[in-house]
């Protein structure tokens, strides 16, 4: 896989307009966020605990609904979907990877990977072919019959990535994907995300790891108290070279054009 530096292409994959999320009587978890992400773009979302990162991810994944505003992903008005519609939307359009992998411990690696396809009713032969392709390309095919608990953290996150890509989602949501990994495994996952993005996969990366954001994403936004405090286009740090020399694109100050 290659990692060409490039400009984000159109059309829009994510389009949030004045999206607000309030819980009870407290301050809004997300306060009127307007955000656009183009197809093929990799966007990193930075922020401290409680800044609204997870809320933003949940709204985009259709796991939660905004109190006001709109959320459109891949042309679908996610904020208007019901429970079943959200599930089908996630099935068809979203792949998710998590900090703690969220693999099903009582299923083998292969069965974990197959679950999204089986829930979507994909044909058996096609599901088998697709899972073999993913396990092979991610280098975990020899662990297909193993259970997740036997794998290293990096291997588990690869299984999670394979599962997330099973239904060829338009958008990959990565929630702190390296947060539970050692540095070697974290680099491994970072390279994987870069490769996927290079192949055209749109990625939204939620992290508090500044280096990961700068080295992986085209663009980084920082959330503070539920609002976008900064929106930075990353510079040349992103790329293979940056894996060994981490980017210096801090979001504490504008490192590129601010939108």
């Amino acid at each position, binding site marked *: 896989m290659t990692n060409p530096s490039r400009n984000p292409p159109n059309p829009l994959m994510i389009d949030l307009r004045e999206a607000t999320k309030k819980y009870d009587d407290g301050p809004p978890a997300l306060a009127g966020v307007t955000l656009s992400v183009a197809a093929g773009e990799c966007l990193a979302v930075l922020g401290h605990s409680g800044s609204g990162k*997870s809320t933003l991810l*949940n709204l985009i*994944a259709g*796991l*939660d609904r905004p109190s006001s505003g709109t959320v459109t992903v891949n042309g679908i008005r996610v904020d208007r979907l019901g*429970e*079943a519609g959200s*599930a*089908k939307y*996630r*099935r*068809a359009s*979203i792949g*998710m990877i*998590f900090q703690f992998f*969220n*693999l*099903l*411990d*009582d*299923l*083998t690696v292969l*069965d974990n990977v*197959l*679950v*999204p396809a*089986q*829930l*979507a*009713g994909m044909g058996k032969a096609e599901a088998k072919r697709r899972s073999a392709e993913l396990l092979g390309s991610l280098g975990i095919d020899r662990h297909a019959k193993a*259970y997740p*608990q036997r794998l290293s953290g990096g291997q588990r996150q690869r299984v999670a990535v394979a*599962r997330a890509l099973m*239904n060829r989602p338009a958008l990959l949501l990565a929630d702190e994907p390296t947060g539970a990994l050692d540095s070697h495994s974290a680099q491994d996952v970072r390279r994987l995300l870069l490769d996927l993005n290079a192949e055209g996969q749109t990625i939204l990366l939620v992290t508090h790891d500044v280096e990961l954001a700068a080295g992986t994403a085209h663009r980084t936004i920082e959330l503070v108290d539920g609002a976008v405090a900064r929106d930075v286009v990353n510079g040349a740090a992103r790329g293979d070279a940056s894996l060994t020399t981490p980017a210096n694109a801090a979001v504490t100050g504008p490192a590129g054009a601010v939108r």
Partner: protein
Amino acid sequence: MSALGKVVRSGVGRRRVQSFVMALTTLAAVTSSVLSLGLLTVVQAPFDHAFAKRGGAHLAVQFDGAKATAAQAAATAHAAGVTEAGGPYPITTSLDSTVGPDCTAGIGPGMTFADTAAPPVTVTTRPNLTAGAGLDQIVLDRGTWPTGPNQIVLNDWPGECLGKSVVFSSLAGKPSFKVVGFANSLTDTATGWTTADGFARLTGAGAKTDSQMLYRFAAAGTEAQITADRQAVAAAAPAGSVEGAQSYLTARTQATGNAKSFVPFLIVFGVLGLFLSVLIIAIVVSGAVVSGIRRIGILKSLGFTPGQVARAYAAQALIPATIGVVAGTVFGNLLAVPVLNGTSHDLGSGGATLPVWVSLLVPLGTLAIVAVTAMIPALRAGRLPAVQTLVVGRAPRAERGRAAQRLASRLPLPRSVSLGLAQPFARPARAALVGAAVLFGAVSVTFALGLETGFSKFQDQRSAGFNAASLIVVPTSEDPEQGGPPGGMYGPNDPRTPHLDAAKVSAALASVPGTKAAFGWGDSGATVVGAPTGDMTAVDTVSGDFSWTGMELISGRWYSGPGEAVISDRLATAMGTHVGDAVTVVQEGKPLTLKVVGVAFDTHDSGRSVLVDSATFAAAGLTPRIDQFNVELASGVSGPDWAASATAALSPLHADVDDNQSGHGSDVVMVMSALVATLSVMLLVVAALGVLNTVVQDTRERIHDLGIFKALGMTPRQTVSMVLTSVALTGLIAGLIGVPIGTALEKATLTPMGNAVGMHLPPSVTNTYSLGLVLPLLAGGVVIALLGALLPAGWAARSRTATALRTE
């Protein structure tokens, strides 16, 4: 409130559903147990106590005076198995009696007891009636013992007529005695006691004299043993000399009334309820411990001792259980009131109330069982290391069920279904709890439905036989206010009692259009030698074919020739009579020996009757009495129209058309039916709530996995499907096991219930499980499991994925 108290109160408050379930199941268990144990105590213990105290006889045998001398009767004291004997005592056959003309106490407006019919009396005499030792000591209830030849003590007699005379109306010269007291024999060996001189007056007037012997046996606990004992006595006496025998078991059945028939099914419900209580409490408390491990860690970190933690969790079960126990005790006592109505209170029983010790023992025993059940998981909570519970936050997961998951994933089923199917194998203990709850539910439902079907069939049978008729034809009643005899005030043999002319009425009915079938019958006024004296026994003479009434034979065949009779099951049981035996009936002093060719399930009147063809009576010189014709109308014929056209034909025959009084159903059976329905619904609800509680527990623990599935695109419908499938297989298996158990319990219960009131239920009543009932029942386990899992499945489907994913 102490810290411990607050923890307990918050625990109970947070588990309202579970607390309700625990209260409900203990309520069902205690209600059934209090009632069953209480009934056994109230209705049977007084008899057993009095039987021991008064030297009750296991068997009283009446020997035909013409076939066995007193010495020969006395010799049977040495028959095999006899441990003690009394007699021989001279005894009459059952004698017709009327209240003497001197009893002018009023029955109602314008009517007195004078000359009205009184129950037949079997009179005996003993050398020492007041004996305080020996077999069958007679107890004087009111008045004095007889001291002269004109005095007598009776058992069943209008209280207002004490001190007045009784007239033996079927004897020559109608001898009269002054009733000086009321007395009773515990085993109903006789209903009248007089002096030797007084007895001589009866024999002098033509009363047939027999000999009565009383026995106790080495083995006499069951009907079969009593039958064998009776045969041993008969073998020691001249052939054919035994006219009748009275078993103490029959007397006990009469004394305990219908209440004892409640005991078998109440015991089953009590045991089921207790098991279910233990199961539910184990589920709830262990569930509370497992789901509250983090909470336990916090409590311990705050300084709670292991003992305090254990007490806190045990108390969360004991509080609702105590509420259920108290309510169950109250319900059990309240339900005893209608159940005990009709029970004999002659033996010093406490009336329609249960003993206090039952209301203490059962609830305290149940609470002890509940406490032990709750303490086992509660102690586990107390022993959990605080550090581990705080760090882990939930019970460690075992690596079980992976093979099942692999296997299920290969099945050609939707993934949500195959995931659910494999779930029980991952948590076998929890699946076992679900299975046990469903099993008890399935057993309860199967048992209850079988009983209810049996009750319904029994009620149907009560409407058959002599109770079956579209309309009935009876003698024209004369208005008592215009000088006519008040109906039913005189005996069947009293010339003032009107009867029907069987041949003429039969012919008239045949001539009325719309008559499909008809037969006549009536109480002949004859008595049965050796029949129990405690209940009314009738010898019914029958004219015509009554096969259309659906009366069922338990054994033998219907009478078809002269000298044959069919005896009702209840009477046959009470007398120990079988097909092939002979019974002697006596009408106005004239004996007639009949061969018993069949035993019928006949429930009309008190269910104690001998059915004889009128022709047999007439051929023997006795008078058949026909008091009623049962008429079956052809289909589509209007009752009022038929009655209008029949009246013209019947009026000249002094016969009238009357409605067949409906409502032959037994009130006792209706009370039983309501009780069974209530208890089974309670247990069913508890079983379903037990499943619900377990699935809620399971869903809580799997909430993180559910979040993953939903994040991967599992729809709410697929989530519901997965949760429901996770209990369906367990429910199916539990149902398949529960149905045969429930069926066996019903089989072991219904028959003893009949036996408790001296009945042998026929196959038409006891064959309760048709294929149409069993097939749905087999699926009942799945239904219970699904009903219980439906709510948590919906909850799982609605749970917020984002929250679930963060749950560890």
